[in-house]
């Protein structure tokens, strides 16, 4: 029975990874397509390879946080942990599917974290752990990182774009030629974004799998991360390219100098978060960075209403994912 639960967790984890590739990775990569810096084929290849590399080489810390940073799985019976992990990944997967269907700007990260909290609460209600055993201090840090990361991305892109503006745009003879040069540099930042994205967001799929393994040691098995990275790469190749095309066409205003500034800032923020083991939303960080470019006077029109929508979406996502997770957990405990 445990094996069936585990296989189910892996399968849904793969679906989650596919979804991350199809939507989140694609959104991040679309900035390079919109500016015309890269062709669709180039983006898919770069994104596929570097998302995989980021996930495999740098994805363990965030995976670790989601797997056992919030819920103290080492205090529980392995079978209960397996059921909890399955509930969490199922809850996050269902919510993401609904949100995607209704085009809500929901973060997979917030769903995964919310779902793990739900698993913790369900376990506490069954008396398996104490409510105080849930790592609320870690949870506070995570929530704080959700607020800090877009702000950090914005501040950084203000500085970078202002620097580009003052030292290059203001001084060059031909601004169009400058944009072309930055188009080449964007190959670098696009790769950077893909690597950073893979390193952070893979955890939303691999975190519950790692938890289900009942693993207690220091590092996540490599094959779990590879599986997550593979899922993301397949997501980009099988569906993400459509998203890149659709999104890219709408953001042609993000010229290479602007795209470079936003991508570099977002990727750096995400990499720092991955290093600190903080599961943050790459897309929300990218939105913060784009707004930063706008604040630095680089964009013709930035819709600030998106900030309200994003805040609303994550205020909703955590309780919904948690609630779903609790319901599924209680159901599975009775059924299995």
């Amino acid at each position, binding site marked *: 029975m445990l094996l069936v639960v585990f296989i189910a967790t892996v399968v849904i984890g793969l679906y989650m990874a596919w979804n991350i590739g199809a939507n989140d990775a694609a959104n991040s990569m679309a900035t390079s397509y919109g500016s015309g810096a890269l062709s669709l084929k180039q983006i898919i290849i770069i994104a596929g390879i570097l998302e995989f590399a980021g996930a495999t080489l740098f994805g363990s810390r965030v995976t670790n946080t989601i797997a056992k940073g919030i819920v103290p799985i080492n205090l529980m019976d392995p079978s209960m942990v397996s059921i909890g992990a399955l509930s969490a990944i199922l809850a996050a997967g269902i919510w993401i599917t609904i949100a*995607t269907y209704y085009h809500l*700007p929901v973060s997979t990260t917030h769903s995964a974290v919310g779902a793990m909290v739900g698993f913790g609460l369900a376990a506490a209600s069954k008396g398996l752990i104490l409510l105080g055993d849930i790592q609320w201090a870690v949870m506070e840090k995570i929530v704080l990182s959700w607020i800090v990361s877009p702000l950090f991305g914005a501040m950084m892109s203000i500085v970078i774009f202002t620097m580009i503006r003052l030292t290059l*745009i203001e001084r060059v003879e031909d*601004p169009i030629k400058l*944009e072309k040069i930055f188009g080449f540099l964007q190959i670098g930042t696009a790769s950077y974004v893909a690597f950073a994205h893979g390193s952070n967001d893979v955890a939303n799929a691999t975190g519950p799998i790692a938890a289900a393994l009942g693993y207690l040691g220091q590092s996540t098995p490599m094959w779990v991360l590879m599986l997550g990275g593979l899922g993301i790469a397949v997501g980009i190749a099988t569906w993400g390219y459509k998203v890149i095309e659709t*999104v890219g066409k*709408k*953001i042609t*205003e993000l010229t290479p100098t602007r795209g470079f500034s936003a991508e570099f800032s977002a990727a750096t923020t995400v990499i720092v978060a991955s290093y600190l083991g903080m599961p943050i939303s790459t897309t929300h960080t990218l939105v913060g960075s784009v707004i930063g470019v*706008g604040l630095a006077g680089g964009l013709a029109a930035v819709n600030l209403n998106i900030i309200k929508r994003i805040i609303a979406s994550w205020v909703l996502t955590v309780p919904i994912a948690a609630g779903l997770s609790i319901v599924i957990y209680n159901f599975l405990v009775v059924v299995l």
Partner: protein
Amino acid sequence: MKFIRSVTDVFGKSPFKKLHEHAELAGKAAKLLKEAVMAYTIEDFEKVNTLCKKIEELEYQADLVKGEIREHIPKSLMLPVDRHDLLSFLKPQDSISDACEHAAQILTFRKISNLPDVIKKDMECLVNNIIDAIDVYEGLVDQISELLLTSFSKKEVQESLEIVPRIENLEHQCDLIEKRLYKEIFNCDRIDPVDVLLLVSLIKEMGEIANNTARAADRFRIMILGK
């Protein structure tokens, strides 16, 4: 394209392309008005009527574009220029096509035959000057894309600022021609007094085209400097 979750909404709808389109409509209306004035002086009143209808159509289109621009710049939209500056630039630009329409309509109210040559000549001169001013003005508005690309670099702003006095000068030339025309009209004994009334209102409206062009250029300057 159902299964998609994206944050493209962060990119608002840029009003600048529409502003450009709006300026082009004013330019087209002014060029048609020139044809109408020329047709009027050779007493081809049929053509005047047709051109007037076309100008009315352009003015209506310009109003629609103006409405679209206004509708799409809520306060939550962050622009590289001040929102109020943009709106107060849009207004005189819209008045250019309004004045073109009024002038064209006046031409259809009454037929005047045997206009004195000197008045014909100066009317032609006035309308040519207006077209010159509008041409330069369109060049100024063309700068928007460059200004946006360089995020209003000092060099680009300077280049745009140099265009504004040229428009102001052409507007001044128009004033001088108008003054001359008024004198000629009021002192020409062989024109019917009702014709005088029509010509005076016509010249006043044509003057408004130039005035609004200069005003819009001035507002454009305020907008790009206000940044």
